């Protein structure tokens, strides 16, 4: 059910959550986290649908904050949904008008689930330093997406410079299938030492930048980057010593990749680019700081 409240306050929104639960007849809550989405009107719908999908794995309370600073009067409008389209969790879309748009934390703080982790997600433009943002500071985990910034790689460098544990970026999440396939390819020793590596991707692709620095950090070999027509990442290549050949993972079409290892038959690998909800679900799976991401960013920052 959905309750619409205009010119309201956080405590009335909290009451609406309780009321909706009570009417639904299930007063016990199985929610595991609060997901705060900071978006504008345009991004909100897509972000909410991704959150609802991801909620199947991690039932959250979703608070979508939409700022409408243009209007004169400071006012909070809310739309609270429990069950049905909200999925297993519950959702409040909170519209902040006028002066209130500058104080979103005052609306969010009273609505956080007691004692449960808080994840803040900016599905569009993110603040320069997520960890010190008034809403970001409430989060244990802060999700940004460099790919949506006007200058993705510049944004990534910015993030690296101002990194705090708990920051994460969907450009990094998108890499997981690539990283796991490359790691699996090296589970058995390669036929010769790896002496260099290269990553091919669309120009400006931030995930490729992270892959370059992850490989450099882990393999301690020079890694270069080449621009290709895309889509997204198209190849990762580990060059072996003594002209043995390359271990290569190539994906020209964004869907099906080919893994080749010298001395082994070439094999197809499904490496489809994932939907946003899948990325969010992966992010919500672990809420502790991601050390590997931190190390990769540190390598990027020092390059």
């Amino acid at each position, binding site marked *: 059910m959905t309750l619409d409240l205009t010119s309201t306050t956080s405590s009335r929104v909290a009451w609406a959550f309780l009321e909706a639960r009570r009417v639904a007849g299930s007063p*016990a809550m*199985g929610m595991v986290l609060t997901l705060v989405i900071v978006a504008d009107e345009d991004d909100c719908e897509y972000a909410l649908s991704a959150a609802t999908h991801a*909620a*199947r*794995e*991690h*039932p959250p309370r979703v608070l979508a904050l939409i700022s409408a600073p243009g209007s004169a009067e400071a006012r909070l409008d809310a739309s609270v949904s429990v069950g049905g389209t909200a*999925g*297993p969790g519950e959702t409040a879309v909170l519209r902040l008008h006028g002066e209130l748009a500058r104080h979103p934390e005052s609306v969010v703080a009273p609505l956080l689930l007691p004692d449960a982790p808080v994840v803040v997600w900016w599905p569009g433009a993110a603040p320069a330093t997520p960890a010190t943002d008034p809403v970001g500071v409430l989060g244990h985990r802060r999700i940004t997406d460099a790919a949506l910034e006007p200058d993705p790689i510049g944004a990534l460098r910015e993030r690296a410079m101002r990194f705090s544990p708990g920051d994460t970026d969907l450009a990094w999440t998108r890499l*997981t*299938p690539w*990283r*796991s*396939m*490359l*790691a*699996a390819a*090296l*589970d*058995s*020793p390669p036929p010769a030492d*790896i002496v260099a590596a290269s990553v091919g991707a669309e120009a400006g692709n931030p995930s490729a930048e992270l892959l370059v620095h992850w*490989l450099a950090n*882990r*393999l*301690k070999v020079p890694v270069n980057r080449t621009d290709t027509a895309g889509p997204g990442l198209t190849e990762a290549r580990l060059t072996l010593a003594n002209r043995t050949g390359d271990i290569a993972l190539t994906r020209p079409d964004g*869907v*099906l990749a080919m*893994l080749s*290892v010298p001395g*082994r*038959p070439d*094999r*197809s*690998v*499904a*490496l*489809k680019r994932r939907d946003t909800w899948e990325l969010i679900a*992966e992010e919500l799976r*672990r809420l502790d700081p*991601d*050390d*590997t991401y931190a190390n990769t960013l540190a390598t990027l920052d020092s390059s």
Partner: protein
Amino acid sequence: MTEMADLVIGYQNPLRDPADRRLPRIAGPCGLVIFGVTGDLARRKLMPAVYDLANRGLLPPSFALVGFARRDWAEQDFAQVVHDAVKEHARTPFRDEVWKQLSEGFRFVPGEFDDDAAFDRLRQTVEELDQSRGTVGNHAFYLSVPPKFFPHVVAQLKQHGLATSKPGAWRRVVVEKPFGHDLASARELNRMVDAVFPPGSVFRIDHYLGKETVQNILALRFANEMYEPIWNRGYVDHVQITMAEDIGIGGRAGYYDGIGAARDVLQNHLLQLLALTAMEEPVSFHAHDLRLEKIKALSAVRLPADLATGTARGQYEAGWQGGEFVHGFLEEDGISPISTTETYAAVRLEVDTRRWAGVPFYLRTGKRLGRRVTEIAVVFHRAPHLPFTATATEELGQNALVMRIQPDEGVTVRFGSKVPGTAMEVRDVTMDFTYGKSFTESSPEAYERLLLDVLLGDPPLFPGHEEVELSWQIVDPITGFWASGGKPEQYPAGTWGPDSADEMLARDDRGWRRP
């Protein structure tokens, strides 16, 4: 991470880092050979699980799936069968690219289990896959066939050189329950399999142990501080472990007649749940340590002194269940009208340890019961003193912690709470934690987890042969006693079993929960 990495001394995968927890466990290059690939289990569970694993990116690109069955199929016919099974039963969406990756590794070998030529073809197929797919000699054989064929298949695997691989590669064999039908046959089965495969290569699948909620018993007990202090005779009055099915025997008459509920369910699922509930904390979750504790718990199980009053058995009779009329067991197709096979079994066990002395464990399982449910209920003593008037607590029962295994997975706590109003009145309420329905749809199916563990060579969730033999030592005297005389009591379909089961608890001044 994987065996391959362990085998080459000194090699460490530079891309793996224990701190990097996003990277999933992917099995190394390997193949899976399924015997009995036309069977129900293979179509409904195994093939979909293989696809789901591939879809989650957990199978190696070189993975190969070989079907072996008595069918005159070409490779593409087999691929079509897998395709249909996946479309119908897989839990994750069908994706063409995943299918392409998988289907390149499909092979089919037609033949009978006593057909030497067929096993020669199987060996050639496996060797061809090592070359063309890069499975590098690693293969698991899944015996999804009736137990009477186990000896044939295992002997053929040995005779045709399929049971051993070149150095550095592995061969594994997977057997499904039932692991024998009594202690002697279980020992015989173990002896036969162990003669061909080394002990670490034999995986006995009890799919219950792959369920998320069963693994959650371990998390609930050993990751929390608040339960362990009360997990003993000082606080626990008794434990009830229930696995109820609402279905009858369906088309399984041939298997079920002569086997019965005690051998089919109690010996494996219920005793495993008992072991997980009663065991001490393992020093680690490595297979060896976990098994050690389960073995200790099972070896401490004591049967009732009088099996006549400490056990109950029944057969469902015709009746109305959930709005439809169903036949009784003795009227089912393929069942003798004088069959004494039980469809309901209950037993009162004790666990002779300091922790559990005097705490009965009531186990029950049956077909055509009130509803489909599996749960473990830990029922606590009443509070030693109630500072209320007797009328205030008239409706207060005993506190209980219920671990719901299926279908509504979660945890329930039952406790007393004041009834709103001006009078002081305390009544039982329940507090439920639920793994949401959708949550469990996207969480891995038991067979996915178990298949992956076989390919990774990670055995904690598989019962070892000592556990199997100990379980038979518990069940054999019961089935022996039942066979010595009398016959199962009839209970109407859709009820909670025979009166003798209720009387068994009533003698202890207790009653079954309605789950």
